[in-house]
């Protein structure tokens, strides 16, 4: 089955629609996994949650992210200003049903030898970033799963852990199929749909062929200007819009 992996959607409807279209048309997506942070930052939390909820109703996986948790419980004290402001705004723009859907999302899902989680698997509820090979190694070694699919960092990345515990990091090249060979263990970060931060504003996602164990990273250009305009029009902090256009 071809499973499209989407993470860090951040209420960006333009990016989500572009990615869904690409995943259906070019990737042959048969099912979806949403790895958390459906909301926060962007101007369309309601429509984004509705689309994910509809997908889950037909078998898609969805995981809770820190922004989803904040939207249901209120911003934690450690959250940065712009993010906290966005949380407050987001809470006001979600219906009770939508908030209940977010509150009910699991912190991780295990399917066979694959684990889907928003941040590091070491302790999913602590939202630890996986930004380095050391972080990736910790995440992989904390669980039994052979492959982890996670998000939270907003930057596409691929880590491979060998039996002798040596870990390698790789910057994925979009469009290149990569076999997740079985003697290694793998940690896949598709990169953010709704707020990429690697200097390339195009939306990120990855496609997994779960039988052949082949993953392909993709970049999908979308109308960043429109998404940014909506953020400004909604009265959200302006730099949340600007960073979409810069991919920063």
């Amino acid at each position, binding site marked *: 089955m071809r499973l499209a992996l989407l993470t860090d959607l951040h209420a960006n409807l333009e990016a989500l629609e572009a990615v869904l279209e690409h995943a259906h048309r070019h990737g042959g997506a048969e099912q979806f996994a949403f790895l958390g942070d459906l909301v926060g930052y962007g101007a369309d939390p309601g429509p984004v949650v509705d689309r994910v909820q509809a997908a889950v109703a037909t078998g898609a996986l969805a995981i809770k992210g820190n922004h989803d948790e904040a939207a249901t419980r209120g911003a934690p004290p450690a959250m940065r200003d712009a993010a906290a402001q966005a949380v407050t705004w987001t809470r006001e723009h979600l219906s009770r049903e939508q908030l209940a859907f977010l509150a009910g999302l699991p912190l991780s899902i295990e399917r066979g030898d694959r684990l889907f989680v928003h941040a590091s698997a070491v302790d999913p509820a602590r939202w630890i970033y996986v930004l380095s090979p050391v972080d990736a190694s910790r995440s992989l070694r904390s669980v039994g799963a052979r492959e982890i699919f996670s998000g939270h960092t907003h930057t596409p990345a*691929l880590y491979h852990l060998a039996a002798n515990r040596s870990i*390698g990091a790789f910057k994925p*090249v979009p469009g*290149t*199929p990569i076999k997740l060979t079985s*003697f290694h263990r793998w940690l896949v970060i598709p990169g953010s749909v709704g707020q990429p931060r690697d200097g390339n504003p195009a939306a990120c996602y990855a496609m997994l062929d779960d039988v052949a164990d082949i993953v392909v990273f993709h970049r999908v250009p979308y109308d960043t200007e429109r998404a940014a305009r909506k953020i400004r029009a909604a009265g959200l902090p302006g730099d949340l819009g600007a960073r979409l256009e810069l991919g920063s």
Partner: protein
Amino acid sequence: MGARLERGVVIDGYTLEEPIHEQGMASLWRVSAPDQPSRVMKVPLLREGDDPTAMVGFEVEQMIMPSLHGPHVPRFIASGDFSAQPYIVMEYIRGDSLRGWLGRTPLDAEEVARIGAEIATALHSLHRQHVVHLDLKPSNVMFRDTGEAVLVDFGFSRHDRLPDLLAEQFRLPMGTAPYISPEQVLRIRNDPRSDIFALGAVLYHLITGARAFGCPTTIFGLRKRLYRDPVPPRARNASCPAWLQEIILRCLDADPRERYQSAAQALFALRHPGQVALTDRARKLRQDGVMTVTRRWMRTLGAVHAERWQSTAVQTARSPVVVVALDLHGSTEALLGAIRATTERVLSTHPGARLACVTVLRTSRLAMDVTVDEEGRNLRVLRLVELTQWARPLGLSEGRSTYHVLEGHDPASAVVGFVRDNHVDHVVIGARGASPLRRYLGSVSAHVVAESPCTVTVVRVAQTGDAEKDEEEEGGAEAS
């Protein structure tokens, strides 16, 4: 893990027919399956307590092989995972590897150049697919019945666009001692010029019957090639021509920047021995003196020659072979000048580029022997002189340009044939319209544009308004 490997055992529908041989850390079987031609199954030999290289090398091959295509690699068919029996099934290439030829060395120079050209062609195809082989040696080169070289065993290879599972894992250089490049000894795994070095080591073996660097078994022994040059081939085999020694020693230079910058450039030299610019390398009959070697040794202390960021495809692309096709007598001075200006621009963006200046001597369909008579020989020499003359203002350093007079009754086909045979990256040619032979020459550039498997720049002199006036003129074709 895995079944016992013996005749008749069936793995995922493939029946083991006969063992071919054990290739390092894997065993190879000819296998059959209903309604399919014979295939090869490669099974890693995994023993208790083994060095993990066997498994990782197998995974590397499993990752890279499905992405490769073309006649110079065995076609990938299927693979199986470690959960059951790990294997790769691929196309069966009949016959022996180049290793079988080593018993007949030294071979003669023309044969060595021919084999070298086939291997260089295969390497260029691989490099263009983002892969450095990193273990080129006689036992990893096979030949199709049609003559093309096929490279096998990608267990040490590196793909630009795939994770390098070997990089993090091992502290020792990976490769085969007699052929491994100095960069690989320094554990640099992303330089396609490493394969050029191995090509030089293979050709050295074929022409001398001896290994250029012996077969060291220690890191110290491997490191010697960073500063110690091999005994010149001509000191070992007096019949080795200077041009072949030039090519081999250039491939074997310790500094990758001094080697051919792409496999296509090495191929070009092997196909055109008469055009190889001979340097001191070609003439030397003994190894470099103690002073030179010491100086080189000092430089190797902590030295890293290769650029770590580079990618195989980028290195290959920035060292193109450029052809400029000239019709010396059918073109105006203005057009020849415009072609020169365009050529200069193309070369200036690629300091690693080689330029081949080409013209076609037309032979008559009926009198094919025209070029072997006195007049024909004189014409060839005259054209070569004219080509050199045309290129002089470009001020290219020796060895960066070559000159070729092709023969044929159809100039366009002759140019396109040359472009295909030499894996040319870019052709510069004059347009129709500026020549008195307008109709005829027009068909040349159009044909070259349509048929060349690369970029073609068609140069036209800016029109001044009365350019149509030569349309009705007619002229005789050269040397027909």
